[in-house]
């Protein structure tokens, strides 16, 4: 069962000025449509026993079982991680583009706010880092920083040239504890460089989800007739005819997305492509799936 689309449609969300209200509506609407069974428990629930293996913490040996069986068994539980979730939002000028009701940056803000709300209500600590060429604003992960995050998102502006790789490398050094890093960007960077940045996060034990946000116009390159295109970040201009270049552009774009998916998947990161005309539930599902997988500790 899915959530009602009305709660998740970006066109409708764009009318809600309050990010807090927006996030609560999104999450409530989203959660209302889920089966209860799909709600993965986050408390200390017993899972199973297994035989003691050299190297296991002896504190985890179940002595009661030992008393009855004279064998060492170790108890295993569903983990309750209280994980730190850091949202990295691309605030470069290229994100300030939209041919529909919302820009990519707005879509990213909605997404981050919703995910932060969701994470907060699941007991996670949430933090935020906005960036373009460098880190712009950083909100450290905390269970009490949701309002600060929403406030920071509310006043964030998209501007400047973006550089994803060094920013991710710096973000990796912000926290010594492993957590979840959610990256929201349009990824106008070489996939190898993106992989390098994500690799830095993975090396520090972070689980990484990269939401690749695109506008439909970036995906399809519509338009007829001669026109001059201007790069939103560099200001470079290029006279061209979209209908002539469309086919080759789509090949390049699809190859770029496929390469990102392949490289990030190879590093154990999740790659979720999104377009701003898509409802937010797809992103929320992707996030929750990754969150569940990350919370299961054996």
């Amino acid at each position, binding site marked *: 069962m899915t959530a009602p689309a009305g709660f998740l449609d970006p066109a409708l969300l764009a009318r809600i000025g309050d990010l807090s209200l927006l996030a609560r509506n999104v999450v409530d609407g989203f959660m209302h449509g889920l089966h209860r069974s799909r709600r993965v428990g986050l408390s200390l629930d017993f899972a199973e026993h297994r035989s003691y293996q050299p190297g296991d913490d002896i504190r985890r040996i179940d002595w009661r079982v030992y008393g009855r069986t004279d064998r060492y068994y170790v108890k295993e539980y569903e983990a309750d991680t209280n994980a730190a979730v850091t949202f990295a939002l691309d605030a470069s000028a*290229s994100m300030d583009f939209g041919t529909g009701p919302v820009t990519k940056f707005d879509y990213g803000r909605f997404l981050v706010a919703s995910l932060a709300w969701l994470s907060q209500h699941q007991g996670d600590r949430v933090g935020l880092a906005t960036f373009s060429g460098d880190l712009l604003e950083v909100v450290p992960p905390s269970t009490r920083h949701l309002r600060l995050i929403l406030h920071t998102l509310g006043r964030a502006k998209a501007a400047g040239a973006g550089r994803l790789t060094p920013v991710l490398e710096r973000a990796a050094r912000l926290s010594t504890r492993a957590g979840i890093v959610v990256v929201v960007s349009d990824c106008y960077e070489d996939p190898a460089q993106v992989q390098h940045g994500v690799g830095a996060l993975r090396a520090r034990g972070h689980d990484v989800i990269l939401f690749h946000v695109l506008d*439909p*116009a970036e995906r399809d390159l519509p338009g*007829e007739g*001669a026109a001059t*295109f201007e790069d939103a970040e560099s200001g470079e201009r290029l006279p061209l005819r979209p209908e002539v270049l469309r086919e080759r552009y789509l090949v390049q774009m699809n190859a770029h997305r496929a390469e990102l998916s392949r490289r990030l998947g190879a590093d154990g990161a999740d790659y979720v492509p999104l377009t701003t*005309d898509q*409802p937010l539930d*797809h992103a929320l*599902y992707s996030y929750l799936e990754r969150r569940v997988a990350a919370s299961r500790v054996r």
Partner: protein
Amino acid sequence: MGGLGFLVPAFLAGLAALALPVLFHLRHRERDRPHRFPSLMFLRRIPIRTAQRRRITDWLLLLLRAGVVALLVAAFARPFLGRAAAPMSAVPSRTVVLLLDRSLSMGHAAVWAVALDSARRVVASLGVGDRIAVVLFDDEAEVTQPLTGDHGLAAAAIAGARPSTRGTRYVAALRAARRIVAEASVGAAEVVVVTDLQRTGLEGLAGLELPPELNVRAVPVVPARRPDAALAGAEVQRVPDGDRSRLLVTARVTLRDRPGGSRGRLSLMVNGRVATTREVALPADGAVSVAFEGVPLPQGRATATVFLEPDALPGNDSLRFVVPAEEALRVLLVAAAAALPEETLFLERALGIGRAPSFAVERRSAGSLDARALRGAAVVLLFDSPVPGGAALDGWIRDGGGLIVAAGRRLASRSGGSALLPGTVRGAVERINDRGGAFGEVSLDHPVFTPFREGGAAALGAARFLRYARITADSGAEILARFDDGNPALLERAAGAGRVLLLAAPLDAVSGDFPLQPAFLPFLRRLALHAVGYEPSPLWRTTGETAFAPRSLGNPVVATPTGALVRPAGDSGARPVALPDAGFYDVYEGRAAGEPALVLAANPPTAESDLTVADPRELLLGVRRSDSTRVERTGPEAPADREGRQRLWRLLLAAAGLLLVVEAFVANRGWRATASDVVPAPPERSLS
């Protein structure tokens, strides 16, 4: 339909503006607001040739814009469709219009044969498929052979040509050639003029418009010497000789290139019989007057001819004229009953002097002016006598009679008038104290004062008037003269076909000295002639002119010099009588029998005997070359037709407006419109 033309072709220079849409189209992208795009990362990787960016990429838009400019320019140039034209396949390779001069001067023995040979050579020079038209001209043009490819017909038309006795007008011939070419709708045409290039025929050429494709070429047929003697005119007088009259004729002969010391014989023929002959010495060049001795004239009208011995140009060797019958105009003089004989003495004596015409004065009483008395009268003169009542006089005047009322002291004392008169007598003006009044403002242009135009006004001013009637002019009256105090002296009013004149200037020697002045006789004679509407008929007319049969002839028939009988056609008024040939024209009433009612003499124009040759280049001197002649030469065109052929500009403007609408639609079909139409894709439902 014919070709397409433009009323204002200068506007076609605006077609240079067609370059603007191209430049605008090529530069449009660079000036256009750029489309902001997140990143050109992928677009940069796609190779794009610069030439591809520079070349015209939107041909539809370019053509639309160029079409708008072209349509606007064409509309402002006011295009029009030509009139119906012959198909191109029918256009021959060469078109020639042969203009053969057949005026009197071409009849010279040394000229006409050469002219015919020249014309035949023109025909012989034509190739197969060439067309030729033959036009014979003198002072008029006659198309004897329209454009034809049968050269034999043209040769026959030339063979049938004969010199005429008329003058030369090249303008008539060139107009005929222009019309032929225009009606045939051929392109270039050659006009060959075979002529003796008589200078007097060039008159009227200035201002003639010929299309530029009409090539005019003169073929002069002028011998080195053209000896000729011509009768250029004559002075004719009928003088009384006892009970009969005699004819005195002095002929004027012009001479050119004649052998010196030669003698010539001139004869005067009256009513078909040679009356007298004179042999005189004629100089080689110049002019000489030859006076014939008086010839007894019979009663009535006589026809006379002065002729020379025929020479190389016989057409101008004779001069015909008509001596009118001795006629006397009846003047009915009605004097006041109390008038003394000496009061009208000067008046009667003055009218009795003079001939051609003479006046026959009859004294009448006012009561005797009935219809019978008025029949045959020319003028009724009321001397200080009131206008008698009755319809007879009024009807007579309206039928063409003339009434003169001389107001004296008796009429002034009555202080009255008549509805017939142009003014009302209101007493008398006494000018004794200032030694008499005089004529003041006088309309010298009026026929009454014709004798006083050339310095004769002083003679009028010499007359003194001690007493005259004070007249107030009625509406519709014309004041021909005033006294020096401003009072009208002579008034006129038309009444039907006749005239009524009211004279305040006294005609007796008691109230002034006018009868004693030299101006009195010519004034009174002209006054009477004007009252009756007398116009002397000319002794002869010129060939090519048109005379008019008098109104009294209800059904005139004209016997021409060639022996043909012609019945002049016309409206209820005067019937025109054409005079194409030299000779006598007898005009009969009803049928050509008995004594003709009118005889007209026609002679070649005197100028035609002037054989001075012009330079061939003068033939086109003053002729304008203009395309506009194409329009007018095909004859008058109805305004609706003309408007129909010129209304293309409206269609062009409408088409330009339509193209602008399409252009606006096409020009806005680009990136922005399409991008804004992106429809959000339905949400992916990968999880359920």
